[in-house]
């Protein structure tokens, strides 16, 4: 079996009430020991030392346990362990309550004990016993003297005996003197003859060396002999000179019984005196023994009480300490803390209430966490939704503070709205002047948040005029956004433009169909009239007819040209796409204008430009239109025309970019957005369809065109064509055009 396991088992065995029961048993043993000591029983006599050792060992164990517990308690007190202070106080109180009364009782008991033992002894009793002993001795002395005389007489008779010393002589002497025993020894102590009154007796009381030595020196041995017979005997041993051997003496030993009365009294006196002397002698050791026993009982009681104080203080404080730890854990946010269910008392009720409280808190926390997670998911969902919306979404509160804005809003407004979150909407206008109209249109609606509104807002920015369709509605009341609004806006510029383009296309088609057809009969009719009646009319009328028909024919021609131009714009020819070198085509077209007196060409073409897929004729028409537009835009010829080409590698969408600039009057800012619409022009000459057709051709090839004013004066057009192998996304193109 493992040592650790044994220690663990021992700890468990000695822990708690078992140890107290053990201590109590030891205490009871000590009490039994004390009781035995009082009675002087044989059991006590045998177990005394064992019990003493057991008690001392128990005492040491208790001391060690208390020391260990005290050390642990002090350490916990120093470390501010919850409950240690209360345990310390309880232990101190328990100890005071147990030690003080026990110590008082101990002192009184000890004093009472000592006085009780002392009261057993009295000087007068001791003196009386001494006196009775002396009296007994005196009484015996009288008898002794008689017997000495009798023994002397017997030795005298024996010394004169000539017939030899034999048992018969001794027998007659014994019968005459009432002696119990007569024995004759030689000087070396050998038995020569004996005579006993009791027939069962065969061996006399022997002389020891000391007795024999004294007798051999001529002294007489006289003494009480309580040992050889049941009653007290007076023992006499006396030397005498033998008549047969002159050089040798013999010894006569005689044992005379004391009178029964005298013997009994002497026996009693001797016994009482001996017992009293022994008791008197043992008085101090007896006090020590009682003191030791009582002290052991006291110590065991006190230490058991102290140990019990530790045990019960710990048991009492355990739920409180657990509560303190639990409270601290709850304060630290650990709501799952559950305490050991208490007993059916007030503390148990407290513990159970605490458990119920933490359970509810934990439940509420879980629910809150779940709600928060759900809210976050919802928020993320909304964020994703808003970020994927093509419409701009802006939320503001009643004071006009921007709360949220999606990425589409940034793109539409061409501003970083994220930097303005938490600021007033007017800050948007201050930071981005081109959005001042936007802010001015929204702010009046903030005062009436409950009313839904919808408005078309036109913005004039660097990209020209843009139209936003803006609508606002009240937000449900949430924290921080009381009476706020959600503002949704879309850039409808492209859509309006497309609608306009479609309208113009329809107009052109109708013109081609409704006007072009009657023109030829009109022209033919006018020419027939002229041909038929010019010669027949008088000169004056003929001149009028000639002039009128000429005007009709000329105007019809003009109308035809106009209708042709419209049909050119309106028709959607089938493109003959092929790979062409844009640089070569530019050079080819520009060669036609080289040497023209009204134009100065500045050409910078990128030699790395790849081929594009386009209809050669349409692109050529585009280039001619651009050159003509530049020529017509200039008031003071010659016009400087800058033509550049670049190869772009942006966004994995390689493109060829063509820049055409002039030094003309430029574009009116308010017309910047409509410059590519039919009949929108600032030039005195021209059909007003040139740039519209250019834009149409560009869009037919999946490209895009942008027009702007140069800072140094004049217009600048940027045309972008996708290269072979890439597909231009129309939306992208539109978006860039917006930008």
């Amino acid at each position, binding site marked *: 079996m493992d040592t650790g396991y044994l220690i663990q088992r021992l700890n468990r065995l000695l822990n708690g009430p078992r140890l107290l029961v053990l201590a109590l048993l030891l205490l009871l043993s000590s009490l039994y020991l004390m009781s035995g000591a009082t009675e002087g029983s044989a059991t006590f006599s045998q177990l*005394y*030392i064992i019990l003493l050792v057991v008690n001392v060992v128990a005492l040491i164990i208790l001391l060690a346990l208390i020391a260990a517990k005290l050390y642990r308690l002090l350490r916990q007190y120093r470390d501010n362990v919850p409950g240690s202070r209360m345990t310390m106080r309880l232990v101190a109180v328990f100890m005071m309550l147990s030690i003080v009364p026990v110590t008082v009782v101990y002192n009184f008991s000890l004093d009472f004990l000592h006085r009780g033992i002392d009261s057993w002894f009295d000087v007068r009793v001791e003196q009386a016993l001494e006196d009775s*002993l002396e009296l007994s001795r005196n009484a015996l002395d009288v008898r002794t003297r008689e017997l000495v005389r009798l023994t002397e007489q017997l030795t005298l008779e024996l010394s004169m005996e000539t017939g030899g010393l034999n048992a018969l002589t001794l027998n007659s002497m014994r019968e005459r003197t009432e002696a119990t025993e007569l024995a004759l020894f030689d000087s070396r102590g050998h038995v020569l003859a004996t005579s006993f009154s009791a027939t069962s007796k065969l061996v006399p009381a022997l002389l020891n060396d000391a007795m024999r030595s004294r007798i051999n020196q001529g002294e007489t*041995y006289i*003494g*009480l002999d*309580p040992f050889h017979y049941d009653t007290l005997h007076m023992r006499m041993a006396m030397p005498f000179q033998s008549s047969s051997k002159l050089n040798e003496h013999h010894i006569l030993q005689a044992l005379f019984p004391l009178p029964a009365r005298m013997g009994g009294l002497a026996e009693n006196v*001797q016994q009482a005196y001996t017992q009293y002397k022994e008791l008197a002698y043992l008085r*101090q050791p007896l006090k020590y023994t009682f003191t030791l026993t009582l002290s052991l009982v006291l110590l065991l009681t006190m230490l058991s009480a102290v140990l019990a104080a530790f045990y019960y203080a710990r048991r009492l404080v355990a739920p409180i300490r657990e509560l303190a730890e639990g409270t601290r854990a709850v304060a630290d946010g650990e709501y799952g803390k559950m305490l050991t269910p208490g007993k059916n008392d007030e503390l148990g009720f407290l513990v159970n209430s605490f458990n119920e409280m933490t359970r509810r808190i934990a439940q509420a926390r879980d629910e809150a966490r779940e709600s928060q997670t759900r809210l976050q998911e919802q928020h993320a969902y909304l964020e994703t939704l808003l970020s994927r919306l093509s419409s701009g979404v802006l939320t503001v509160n009643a004071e006009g503070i921007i709360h949220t804005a999606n990425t589409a809003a940034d793109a539409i407004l061409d501003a970083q709205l994220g930097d303005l979150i938490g600021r007033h909407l007017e800050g948007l206008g201050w930071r981005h002047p081109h959005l001042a109209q936007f802010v001015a249109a929204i702010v009046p609606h903030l005062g009436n948040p409950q009313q839904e509104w919808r408005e078309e807002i036109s913005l004039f920015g660097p990209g020209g005029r843009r139209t936003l369709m803006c609508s606002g509605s009240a937000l449900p009341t949430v924290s921080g956004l009381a009476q706020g609004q959600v503002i949704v806006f879309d850039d409808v510029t492209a859509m309006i433009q497309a609608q306009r383009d479609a309208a113009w296309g329809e107009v052109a088609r109708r013109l081609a169909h409704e006007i072009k057809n009657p023109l030829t009969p009109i022209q033919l009719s006018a020419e027939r009239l002229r041909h038929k009646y010019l010669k027949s009319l008088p000169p004056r009328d003929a001149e009028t007819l000639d002039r009128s028909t000429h005007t009709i024919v000329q105007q019809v021609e003009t109308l035809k040209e106009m209708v042709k131009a419209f049909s050119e714009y309106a028709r959607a020819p089938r493109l003959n796409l092929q790979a062409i070198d844009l640089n070569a085509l530019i050079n080819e077209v520009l060669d036609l204008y080289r040497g023209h007196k009204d134009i100065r060409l500045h050409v910078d073409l990128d030699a790395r430009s790849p081929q594009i897929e386009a209809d050669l004729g349409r692109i050529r028409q585009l280039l001619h239109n651009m050159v003509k537009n530049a020529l017509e835009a200039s008031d003071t010829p010659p016009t400087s025309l800058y033509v550049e080409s670049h190869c772009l590698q942006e966004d994995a969408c390689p493109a060829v970019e063509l820049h055409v600039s002039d030094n003309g009057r430029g574009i009116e800012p308010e017309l910047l957005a409509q410059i590519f619409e039919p009949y929108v022009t600032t030039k005195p000459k021209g059909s007003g369809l040139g740039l519209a057709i250019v834009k149409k051709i560009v869009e037919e090839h999946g490209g895009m065109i942008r027009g702007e004013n140069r800072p140094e004066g004049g217009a600048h057009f940027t045309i972008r064509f996708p290269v072979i192998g890439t597909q231009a996304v129309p939306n992208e193109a539109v978006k860039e055009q917006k930008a």
Partner: protein
Amino acid sequence: MVSITRYCKRTSWPLLCIALCLGGGQAGFAAEEDGPPFLIRSAEVERGEQSYRLRGIIDFGLNDTVLEALHNGVSLTIETQARLYRQRDWIWDKQVSGLDRRYRLRYFALSQLYLLTNLDDESKRSFLSLSAALYNLGHFDAELAPRHEVLSGQPHYLRMRIFLDIESLPAPLRPLAYMSSRWRLKSKWHEWTLDI
């Protein structure tokens, strides 16, 4: 020790005194020790017709404390132990015989005699003086072992000691006797090699 005892009487605070006695009693009593210890002066084993007999001479030095107890009626039990061993080369020595003799010495005030009782056979002998009683007790003569148990030619040795039996003292006196060196009267184990 005397001073400690007085203090205990005066203050009635014996707990401290007990602790002092337990801890320092040994040194205190040892410092007052004046009587000679029990001394085995000589011992010899004689081969008889039937058995081997052990004869020894022992000096008993009873100190004042023990004499006071004796003259106040306390019986003293003195025990003699003797062990005869045969030496063996490869294994432990064999105990051939063992001899335990217990004597009780008691004083009678009326007759002023010292009675020595052999507790093994209850035989009694009385003496006029203590020295005579101790002399008699000190001249030891007893049968040690039958002859057939002792193998001649084999090495033998004898161990012997003598001591006052504290366990036989009256119970109140025993704790003090255990703690006091004045009551711890005993000889060492004496050992003799025997030529047999």
